[in-house]
């Protein structure tokens, strides 16, 4: 069942989402999202016993790739050109290991 009074722990969820939020944003979002979750409470009134969850509009099952032919691809320069920082056709990021 839904929690009694829906409330989002913004710090916890923002960390899961890898999203930096200012204190103002947290305060504003927190109130708005609790209101929105309140509106979602309606869902708990429906009987869904035995209903199969629906993830897709059509009844599709496994999709096999038909042949995997080698084809044309992009030159490395084309793709690395999009990155914020690159060197020798590689993507440069800040140091990630100690």
């Amino acid at each position, binding site marked *: 069942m839904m929690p009694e009074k829906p409330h*989002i722990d913004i710090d916890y969820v923002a960390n899961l989402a890898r999203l*930096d939020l200012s204190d103002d944003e947290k305060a504003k*979002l927190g109130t708005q999202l609790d209101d*929105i979750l309140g509106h979602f409470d309606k*869902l708990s009134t429906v009987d869904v016993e035995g209903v199969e969850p629906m993830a897709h509009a059509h009844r599709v099952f496994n999709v096999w790739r038909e042949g995997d032919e080698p084809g044309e691809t992009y030159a490395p320069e084309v793709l690395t050109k999009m990155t914020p920082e690159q060197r020798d056709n590689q993507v440069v*990021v*800040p140091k990630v290991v100690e």
Partner: protein
Amino acid sequence: MSDLHFKTISELSALLAAGETTSVAITQSVIDRTAAVDDKVKAFLSTDADDALAQAKASDERRAAGNPLGPLDGIPIGIKDTLAVKDQPLRCASKMLENYVSPFDATCIVKLREAGAVIWGRLNMDEFAMGSSTENSAYQTTANPWDLDTIPGGSSGGSAAAMAAGEAIATLGTDTGGSIRQPAALCGVVGMKPTYGLISRYGLVAFASSLDQVGPFTRTVEDAAILMQAMLGKDPLDSTSIAPQGETNYSEALKEKKGPWKLGVPREFFGEGIDPEVKANIEKAIDWYKSQGCEIVDISLPHSELAVPVYYIVATAEASSNLARFDGVRYTHRSEEAKDALTLFTKSRGEGFGDEVKRRIILGTYVLSSGYYDAYYLRAQKVRRLILGDFETAFEQVDAILTPTSPTPAFKRGERSDDPLAMYLSDIYTISVNLAGLPAISVPSGFTESGLPIGLQVIGKAFGEADMFAVANAFEKAHDYAQQTPKL
């Protein structure tokens, strides 16, 4: 109305075939019109007149050599900023993709090019297609050409406003919860969302993958049929695309199918929250169908009131996952404060995304998180099936369903900016269609006393586009609403 830029695809295609105009003349007319009015409307994020004219010139040369490609050859079509066009910016109206230029064409763009269309400009939208007013663009807000103080609807607001203002002959948008049909209604043009899977999503920046579809904005139903025929088809690059079923020669179907039809009217769509002028307008449209011999059937879609919560759970859950790719590493904004792996992600995302996108990422992450998944996401997926079941039951007795497209006409800019729930409720008549994967079209059905457009939504069966187009076409041809243009 003698201006080329306010003509339809079918009219222009006839003029081109008769040698009475050229693609360069049409394209120049659209370019000039855009230069004259876009300061007020702000539909376009960017345009590339030289590129459009070069495509137009190539079209005229094909035609002169005796090899025209069909009704779309030489027709300028504006593109929403969420669809990839080779060598053009693809920013999704977000700071996150400020410097991104697409190295490839989306499949729908490839198909339009194969049909000879002139690909024209990048149209404004709500950031990452999240919104119902186009006020969530990181770059500019678009005005409704019928009243510049009101919103054009969203998220494809630029695509709808450009049509109403004569800045393109047709445009493409995307529809996840009503993002084509609602702005089409609010701007007085035709907007159509196909059956899920009919058009490839390859090259469409993903928001909610189980709901997103590409679709056309046009001046007439006939034009929408022409564009759909050119774009549909299974694509090896999108495993959710589906081989067309049933009748797909829509232009032919429009000529042959004359009704009368059995049309369902869901009583739940005329209750609380609907503007009285919209209600009276849609009831009048229903009476018109009745006067033409159609049988109007009172139907019930009992789970309709749950569509908004189900949609905002499913769509935000999918969005939180899809938008994880915008991480500051590859093609996105990177924060100057990024010092290590974690701040590279958190700071870049915190700076790159706008308020509504952040709101939806947080909501989507929450409904998927441990302890809440069953109560929200899993339950929403189950209710989604009940919503589909409502439509399946209704379609056992009717050929199509008639509803308002939007509960209200265009509202004032800024009016709902701080009330996300009120904004979410403006999609109340369109989102259940996405949840069920059905096709639907909005056609102009008249104006309010203050001169704002109203739209009638025709919902079809899955892959029932031919009948849906025919039902919508009959109404449009018998009225002159679609031919009216705003004074700018």
